[in-house]
């Protein structure tokens, strides 16, 4: 077991190092130079500035310094935001909103996805199954930003305008994040969460359905039924427990999907989170922030995958043996 976990950790660190290296050299290869300004600096001044920021050192030394700084979470200053905000500050400001949105969406996607998958499998071939699977294939096929615009247009715009005279307040605001009133705070979060969780929910429900169908036809279910267990006990203790295992493996990629989903969802709904920050830094070519957020996201996802791998190894001993 320790060997298995050690193995996983080594690979996670390797992936992280590779990502950091790729990021560094890509940024090095980028055309342009901070000193390419219309007004040329005196040579001595430029030399001093280069020396101050360590830009006079060979690339290898710069690389090592960068790695050292990255380990301590120091990614330098943003090119774009005035007032010398550090990248760490910028990320710190965006993270809470994204985490809030992400955790809500992941929770809802998992719970609803499992439920939908279970209902579909138990009613395989019937109307409930067809409906659930139609919803699922729709969720896999409609890009998150399309869904976001659909709910924004039809629910936040049309429906909210229609019910406003009745309720007296705007049910679902079109964009924005925080407000002082509880009702509106809640309203701000509903639509982004719907748009963000739908795709993941669909993936989970499809997976759960097929995994459940595999389990239903296995012999131990027959045994459980034959020995007179109630239907509910068979479903809860034998079917769901055994079919939920594969779901654990997709939680890593799922976290990735939800996280990259936040890029567009946050931009569309005006949520001041990391995703929107990433997009604006890409659009503004704010390289230090791009590097910082890329590494932050990468580290986060690699860590998630590591957790999922270890969790799966703990739950299912066959994985450990195979490795």
């Amino acid at each position, binding site marked *: 077991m320790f060997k298995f976990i050690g193995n996983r950790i080594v690979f996670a660190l390797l992936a992280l190092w590779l990502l950091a290296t790729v990021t560094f050299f890509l940024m090095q*290869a980028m055309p342009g130079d901070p000193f390419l300004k219309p007004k040329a600096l005196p040579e001595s001044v430029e030399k001093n500035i280069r020396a101050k920021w360590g830009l006079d050192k060979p690339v290898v030394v710069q690389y090592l310094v960068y790695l050292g700084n990255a380990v301590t979470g120091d990614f330098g200053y943003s090119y774009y935001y005035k007032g010398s905000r550090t990248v760490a500050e910028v990320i710190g400001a965006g993270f809470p909103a994204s985490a809030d949105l992400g955790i809500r969406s992941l929770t809802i996607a998992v719970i609803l996805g499992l439920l939908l998958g279970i209902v579909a499998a138990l009613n395989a071939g019937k109307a409930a199954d067809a409906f659930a699977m139609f919803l699922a294939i729709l969720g*896999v*096929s*409609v*890009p998150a930003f399309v869904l976001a*615009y659909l709910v924004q247009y039809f629910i936040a715009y049309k429906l909210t305008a229609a019910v406003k005279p009745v309720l007296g307040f705007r049910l679902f605001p079109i964009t924005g994040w925080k407000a002082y009133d509880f009702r509106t705070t809640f309203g701000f979060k509903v639509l982004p969460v719907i748009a963000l969780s739908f795709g993941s929910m669909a993936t989970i429900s499809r997976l759960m359905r097929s995994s459940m169908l595999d389990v239903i036809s296995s012999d131990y279910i027959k045994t459980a039924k034959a020995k007179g267990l109630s239907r509910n006990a068979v479903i809860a203790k034998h079917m769901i427990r055994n079919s939920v295992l594969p779901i654990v493996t997709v939680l890593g990629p799922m976290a990735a999907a939800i996280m990259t989903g936040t890029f567009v969802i946050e931009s569309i709904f005006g949520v001041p989170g990391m995703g929107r920050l990433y997009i604006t830094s890409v659009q503004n070519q704010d390289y230090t922030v791009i590097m910082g957020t890329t590494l932050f996201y990468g580290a986060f996802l*690699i860590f998630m995958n590591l957790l999922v791998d270890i969790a799966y190894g703990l739950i299912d001993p066959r994985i450990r043996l195979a490795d």
Partner: protein
Amino acid sequence: MSKMKNGNGNGNGKTAKTPKGLSPIAAPLDYDKLVLDAGDFEVVGTDIEKSMAMVRPSISYWKDAWRRLKKNRVAIVCLAFIALMAIGSVVLPMVSPFSFREQHWDEVEVPAFTVCEQADAAGVGHMHIFGTDKLGRDQWTRVWSGGQVSLFIGFMAAVTNFVIGLPYGSLSGFVGGRLDNVMMRAVEVINGIPYLIVVTLLMVVLPGGIPTIILAMAIVGWTGLARLVRGQVVSIKEQEYVIAARTMGASRSRLIFRHIMPNTLSVVIVSTTMAIPGAIFTEAFLSFIGIGVPDPYASWGSLCQNAQSSIFINPALLLIPAAFISLTMLSLNLFGDALRNVLDPRMRR
């Protein structure tokens, strides 16, 4: 259950063969008294010609797969839809009276079915079927030429995955041992890096354009297929028929091309089909955040992005390309599902 009940029965006179000397209707056979000699049997013999003859035409795996695919109505509808989209994307921009980059300044964001009245435009007198966008460009032409770009990128990304992933996975799986170990560890490390982040990063650094998008996706996209192929090859390599072929002295290339490759094909085809919607999605995402297809070229993603500023005024501008992406992805996903069912031998009954 029912078999056991009949088993201890004493033939009720309707047994196929009635021994000599006993009347066919003779009630219960007394097996103790039954005496059989060689004369009761005759040699039928074997007609080699007859027993070797094909009763029905032989059906190859692919013929069978196609036959079963044809039975799946949803799959056929999806296939037809995809074909229609592909043909439409190639043909319609060519026959359209407008160009995808031509601007009509007097007709900005006009509703659907407005007749073009701009005198200096080549297509004067023709209809803007989907209206025009905020720069006065004909939306019908742009949606279809956007389809060209989106479908091309999706298809090419899938092909590049295939071109890199298939040889990589086969080599790793077939050779095995240390090479396999090293190659798969490399895949694992690459796999550990989030895909969209790397693609975005590459798009930021590399000069924009369609080839760059395909390249960026190809650099990190092939690992999934490589893993899949390797797994298949490793399991097929140990199958009895491959061992038999090897024992009979089949050469390495014969083993690979004749026995192993064809059996991985079904998995590869399904995975490649499924890669197309994924790539279209990635392209839409990149264009949506503004680092995908550069203006004035259109793709379904960039059309949505361009339309977002006027969503509350002119929702059709966004809804039409959105519907095109969604329906195409839906068809590709459904078709991929059907293909998996058809090509997977375990699904046969």
